[in-house]
């Protein structure tokens, strides 16, 4: 039951974030908040990753990068939008170069609110993503059996 629970790996990409959410994401992986106690690791390689955490809204140039990273990840995969910029664009939604939230490019499974998203919220969001990942895995397995 649920071997994903043991160790999903997170790939982090900064689409157009201001760094606020990125440093909180990193802070949530370090000793005080310690996301790693759930076996969740930060990885730099999309081919190792199960969860894609995107911070910041998507712009003209980063949409291709986000798309490529998503395509490179193995199935099943979950996308987490960290922070309000990744959700809707925050104060930047009126900027000429901002397309809007990550959901304009990728199917997002979990939205984490906050500007910047707090580590507690990030931990909660990533754990929700783990549940979704498990569901997706079960579905995927069923599909393969058929």
């Amino acid at each position, binding site marked *: 039951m649920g071997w994903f629970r043991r160790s999903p790996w997170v790939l982090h990409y900064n689409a157009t974030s201001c*760094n606020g959410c990125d440093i909180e994401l*990193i802070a949530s992986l370090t000793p005080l908040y310690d996301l790693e106690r759930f076996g969740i690791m930060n990885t730099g390689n999309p081919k190792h990753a199960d969860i894609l955490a995107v911070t910041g809204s998507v712009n003209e140039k980063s949409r291709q990068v986000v798309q490529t990273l998503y395509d490179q990840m193995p199935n099943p995969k979950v996308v987490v939008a960290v922070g309000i910029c990744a959700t809707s664009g925050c104060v*930047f939604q009126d900027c000429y170069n901002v397309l809007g939230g990550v959901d304009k490019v990728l199917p997002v499974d979990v939205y984490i609110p906050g500007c910047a998203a707090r580590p507690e919220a990030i931990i909660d969001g990533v754990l929700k993503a783990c549940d979704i990942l498990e569901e997706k895995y079960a579905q995927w397995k069923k599909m393969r059996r058929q």
Partner: protein
Amino acid sequence: MAHRNIIPFGPQHPVLPEPIHFDLVTEDERIIDAIPSISYVHRGLERLIEKRDFLDFVHVADRICGLCSFMHSLGYCQAVEEIMGIEVPERALYLRSIWAELSRVHSHLFWLGVAADAFGFESLFMQALRLREPVLDIFEETTGARVILGVCKIGGVRRDIDDDSLKGIVIRLANLKAALEELGNVFINDYSVRHRLSGVGFISRDDAYALGCVGPMARASGLEIDMRKLGYAAYKYLDVEPAVETAGDCYARCLVRVREIFHSIDLVRQAAGKIPPGPIDVKVTGAPDGEYYSRVEQPRGEVIHYVKGNGAKFLQRFRVRVPTFSNIPAMIKVLKGAEVADVPNIILTLDPCISCTER
């Protein structure tokens, strides 16, 4: 002649917290040219002045960058205050300096952590980020937020820190100092750190000056460029002593930052001792009519905020030139001739902050 290869570096790379792309032209293991390519995080926030009035725009300025959030709002507010001739109360100036110095401590600690991660010293990364948390706790208690503080406003600051809390902050920083000394000791004396950083990424004093280096990058090459010497906010009342090293390599840049952490803690102590009682803000009426270049020393160096208004609520032009933008030419110069394995180290010791660079 050796074969030439082009190695793409970034935008997504394990050591890079932020997207920047370099095309590294290599000959065997040696880099002979580096071509940067930016705009992965370009949002175009300078044009938001058309949609937000000059009072609201402080919130956008706060969000130019998460790591130096407070310095951006400070620089923007200073520029507007200079144009409008607002006399900010002294207590607010001191509070601004205190928050600015605390921002420097947390930014440098974050940098030390990420740099340690880049040369593969993961436990040091974890320790640095663990020691950064007490600073963020102080932010949370005094402003209500951890990274984007949103506490600076035109005409002063939004929140006061009472004297007892100030004393508490000084005591907590003093306690933190002991732990930081241990951490700093690892960065300064550890064999593997020295081995990875000494002599790597050298830039001479003259080159650094000609290429417009600012901040720790310039100070590590022996240039004393520190905008705090201009005496903005409460720095005119404090003893600011820029940390200057002369070696000009990655190790020197690391040393500068370690020394600056301690100096910042000392500046907070000085400011907490001298802070006068009084109001924390003044009422703002009218709109800016004129222009001003405000210069503020960020953790990464000198930042320029240019504000131009014509008396309307909406500004005519806002421009920010951030330290990383100024340091990129030096980054290219340093990368030429380096080994491929040292590239992450070199890029990180410049402390690139891409989201402010591209706005």
